[in-house]
């Protein structure tokens, strides 16, 4: 059995020796060296492992590898390539001073990217609701909200 999907735009095939119930997170970190996605709690609560599967945020620590077969997976490393400028979301997070320890930031960046890609207009409440699954212990969330709202305002809603 093998699982084929795209990972940050690259076609990927994971071979049969990895069981289907293996978490997507462990495959990302251990097989592909994508350590940007964090193991914060391993129980699907903190959201530090949030990645996008077909544009939807999922917690990779609980998400089975088998579920991503034929899907499009994006991680924080796929937001902007190593030599590319930051995305608007990443840039706004820095401009608003929204990054402290940063351990939750890969997950937060993915959640906000998904929100801003599909919403025409976002309010502060929309951002707070979208971030329900992302725990940040440092910032108190306010600057995440300000950053996301500023991106939406700059781009007229869509990135």
């Amino acid at each position, binding site marked *: 059995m093998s699982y084929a999907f795209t990972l940050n735009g690259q076609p990927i095939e994971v071979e049969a020796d990895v069981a289907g119930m293996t978490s997507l997170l462990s495959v990302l970190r251990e097989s592909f060296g994508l350590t940007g996605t964090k193991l914060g709690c391993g129980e699907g609560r903190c959201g530090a492992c949030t990645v996008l599967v077909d544009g939807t945020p999922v917690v990779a620590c609980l998400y089975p590898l088998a579920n991503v077969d034929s899907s499009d997976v994006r991680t924080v490393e796929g937001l902007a390539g190593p030599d590319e400028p930051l995305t608007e979301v990443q840039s706004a997070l820095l401009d608003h001073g929204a990054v402290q320890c940063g351990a939750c930031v890969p997950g937060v960046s993915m959640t906000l990217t998904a929100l801003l890609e599909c919403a025409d207009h976002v309010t502060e409440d929309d951002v707070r609701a979208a*971030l329900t699954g992302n725990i940040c212990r440092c910032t108190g969330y306010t600057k995440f909200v300000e950053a996301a709202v500023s991106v939406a305002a700059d781009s007229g809603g869509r990135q």
Partner: protein
Amino acid sequence: MTAVGRNVRRADGEGKVRGSVRYGMDYTELGALTGKVLRSSLPAARIARLDTSTAATMPGVRAIATATDAPGLSGMFFVLKDQSLFARDEVRYAGEALAAVAADTEAQAEAALAAIEVVLDPLDPVLDPDHALTDGARLIHPDWESYETIVPGPRSGNLAWESRIERGDVDAAFQEAYRVVEDEFRTQRQHQNSIEPHAAVARYEEGRYTVHTPTQFPFNVRGRTAELLGVRPSDVRVVVPAIGGGFGGKLDIMLEPFACVLARKSGRPVRIVNTRSEELRTCAPREGGIVRLRTAVARDGSILAQEGEIIADNGANSSGETVACANAASLVLGSTYRVPNARYVSKVVYTNTPPTAAFRGVNGPYSVFAQEMHLDHIARELGMDRRDIRLHNLIGSGDVMVNGQEVDGPFLREAMDELETMRPWQQLQASKRPYRGHAIVPVTWLTNSGAGSASMKLNEDGTVTVASAATEIGSGAVATGVRQLVADQLGVDFHDVLVTPPDTDTGGYDLGAQGSRTTFGAGNAMIDAGKKVREQILDVAANLLEAAPEDLELADGSVHVQGVPDRRVGLAAISATASMTSGPIIASGGFVAPPESFDGGCMTGALLTHFTAATYHAHHAEVEVDPDTGRVTVLRYTVVQDVGRAINPQMIEGQIQGGVVQGLGYALYENLRVHGGEVVDDNLESYRLPIAADTPPIDISILENPCPYGPLGAKGAAEPPIVPVAAVIGCAVADAIGAPVNELPVTPFAVLQALRKQGESAA
């Protein structure tokens, strides 16, 4: 353009948003084994049998360590040495280490743990701190008298440590009182819950341990690991990758000594990373506290005298800062209001529970909660307005704090006045609606005075590198603050100031990221080094420019003659010249805060004696209570905070917002419950952390009352915003429901209970 005062982007920001920064939890080494720790399931027991022989023969197992491998006794800050790395003979808390295993894979390590034969003969656990202090209580450390201490301290049996402040004639003042008011408050354990769990990767080579760990305080980890393993501190090298949050929880050793001993025994690197459950069950939280206050007041609301007993639950040993910080509770009780006669006793008590430790603000949040709820009680007794009684007793210029230290200005009053312009008290009182409440709390807090050092060099390209063991726990102190200070001092761009990752082999001693000290203490040390580097630069430049050093200025990466901007030489050229003439430009510097004068005679057992670079704060909150569900909603929160000098206002705002939200968690949701000695909330399903939807609008006003010995006047900014939050929320909820709340957290159940009690007494 100068860097200080600007919201520069943090130096580690791009890596963090790209996901390319390597945190402690991401770090590993080629060939690393997986380490796991076997922990006691019982809170109190005799170890009847511990047999690792079967486990040692299991597939993939490379090393097993037990108590015989770690002979030392130690304690946090080396204050009270009552901790061994592994339980010996007796288990004192559920979660105490019995053995550790290193194996090729995690599954093999877990299988080996399961194969270790353990027989524990249960003892009666001593769980309640009040009970622990009673005469008949079983001694948790029967050998307590034999433990080494840093200074002689008042202690006895289950009383691990006692600190005392006695000032004035308390008994006489109580006799003259118009009213005497008494209260008792109880607060819970709060867990730091950094998103990154504890992690350590150790190797052993050339007779030395090297351990990579995301610690806030590398020199403490070095010293404590060495002491537990029975080696010299210099036999251990601590290197710090990026840190994914700390909040006090990463000041002390957790996994480092286990990884070190396993690495030595296996001859391979060993990596240990905690699960979230291990974090919650074994990594020391803020202690639960009991505060009993008794106050004598005059008819006009003046505090005549106060007696306070603070009981802090140390847990099973002193591996956290609870003992070291015992006196902070007394200091904070007597430094916001005038308490002319005071008797404060702070008792740190052993129980058969997981050890407790520092969490941002240490015992401040619950001491302030107690004091403020108590003041509201006094105001009710006297029929006084809650703000008036605070202003009436507020400490100011010429007053002394309870330790005899003189207050350095009218700054608390200024904070209260600033708050008044933002949230006018009488207007809010007049517009009060049912089940809505508000409260105001002033507080004095401190900056950690501890030592820092730095070594600074001018690079060949004109950039500057600072070698330092100061750690960046996320606050931005290293990623922005100290770099901004150095950039302006040497006239270089912010991005041209590089700071090495902390490494105890190359960085000078630094007291770690605690008590808001990094920009203050490490910053001062860097400025000290920078002065010397600046002099060397100017000496070389003076020769090149044929001008006197005092006529030269540093700006934009070069030196020019004052008033003649064209007569200039770049720092790269100066570096090159120096290396061929006077020698490469490099200098070191150090700092420890100058002593403040206070009355040492009024204190016994006090390890924290005074306020360094005191800061002044006023917080206000408006809340709404749902009388049907008991749910508390924070409608608006306001902070006025004195920071001395705002080096990076945006980073300070971030600290305030984050600190307030952690405080809201403490006030309303978070409770690390321990039942029968076992941690109940060992996952984030039941341990309720604040989420984005819980965050109210937070209005912030930053005041700048410069500290004469702070870098450019700066004082600590990151720790204090959590300190008064539980007090403000507690008082505001009490105002909303018309009944006191004397325990934390103020859960919906607690609110409903208070409402019911109030209904019964009304009926």
